[in-house]
């Protein structure tokens, strides 16, 4: 308790903005192997954004809300199991961190894509991955086409996209973007009791196209768009790793 109070005081002093309480609370609940499904259901039901994403995850084949077979949080959790809530707890901080990064460093407002809007990325692509290990283990992948990567890197570096030809500079900017979102994600996991460590980011420039994966057990896939920039983020996680 004292440690928590000390942290709150320091966070106020340094001006650190925490993730929303509901997201932290959800991660804490899911982090416990003996989680209370009713408590998780209540928490998600009270937050419109969490509720909307959970129902999307629970109805992967539906093209619109009208087609949802599982149309309440309770039915989704009880029929799909805690895996759905787990994906929500992992994916939401990543989406939050990515949106905040774009708004803060690029002055761009990201729009979240629905699963139906996720389209294959034409080559050449940039792929960045960061592995994390500890009480939670997994990988976060950030994927985008070369034109999206160039637009992002140019904006971060204050250059015109046409003047940015250096692939190393573009890769470094993609790696740092991944580093920032994963660092925020890791902080949320640690604060929820799932201590883990990050590996340095790895970035590849590849000539292969990428088809978005279908979200499922232990895998969340998120898509984002702003103007001509399209990004895909996958997170695969085992929250109860034995280290």
């Amino acid at each position, binding site marked *: 308790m004292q440690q928590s109070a*000390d*942290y709150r005081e*320091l966070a106020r002093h340094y001006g650190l903005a925490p993730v929303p309480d509901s997201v932290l609370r959800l991660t804490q609940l899911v982090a416990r192997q003996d989680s209370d499904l009713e408590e998780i259901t209540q928490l998600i039901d009270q937050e419109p954004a969490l509720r909307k994403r959970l129902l999307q995850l629970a109805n992967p084949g539906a093209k619109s809300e009208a087609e949802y077979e599982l149309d309440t949080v309770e039915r989704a959790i009880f029929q799909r199991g805690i895996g759905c809530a787990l994906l929500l707890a992992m994916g939401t901080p990543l989406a939050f961190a990515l949106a905040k990064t774009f708004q803060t460093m690029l002055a761009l407002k990201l729009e979240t894509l629905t699963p139906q809007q996720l389209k294959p990325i034409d080559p050449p692509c940039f792929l960045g991955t960061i592995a994390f290990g500890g009480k939670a283990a997994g990988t976060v992948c950030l994927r985008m086409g070369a034109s999206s990567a160039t637009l992002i890197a140019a904006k971060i570096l204050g250059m015109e996209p046409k003047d940015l030809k250096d692939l190393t500079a573009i890769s470094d900017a993609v790696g740092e973007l991944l580093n920032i979102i994963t660092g*925020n994600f890791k902080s949320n996991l*640690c*604060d929820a009791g799932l201590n883990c460590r*990050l590996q*340095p980011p790895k970035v590849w420039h590849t000539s292969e196209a990428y088809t978005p994966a279908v979200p499922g057990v232990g895998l969340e896939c998120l898509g984002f768009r702003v103007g001509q920039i399209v990004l895909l983020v996958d997170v695969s996680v085992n929250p109860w790793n034995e280290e």
Partner: protein
Amino acid sequence: MALKILSVDDSRTIRLIVTRAFKAYDCIICEAANGEEGLAAAAREKPDLVILDVTMPVMDGVTMLGKLKDDPDLKAIPVIMLTAESSQENVLQISRLGVRDYLAKPFKEEQLLEKAGRVVPLVKKAA
């Protein structure tokens, strides 16, 4: 005399952003890509301020901060952490080691300048 600021980050992108942020000010920016290089640069350059990342290869920022604070010649150099990791444990540990401020990524250049300006006297370059 120009202020010396040491930016320690494995990302060239962040080092470029830091350099750009201080461009209008009478500062010399030195760079290092990890904690080991950062310690060597701190001993060599005796900067007025260190801006330090946490997760880096070879030697991370927390280890570098600990070694800096253990060195009688370097321990007085003020440090601002610039990192995406702001978990309770990280913030508490880093705070105990002794930092002047903590800026979480993502950040705006103005935020960095504001925090740096509270630690060292930033003077605009003459037009």
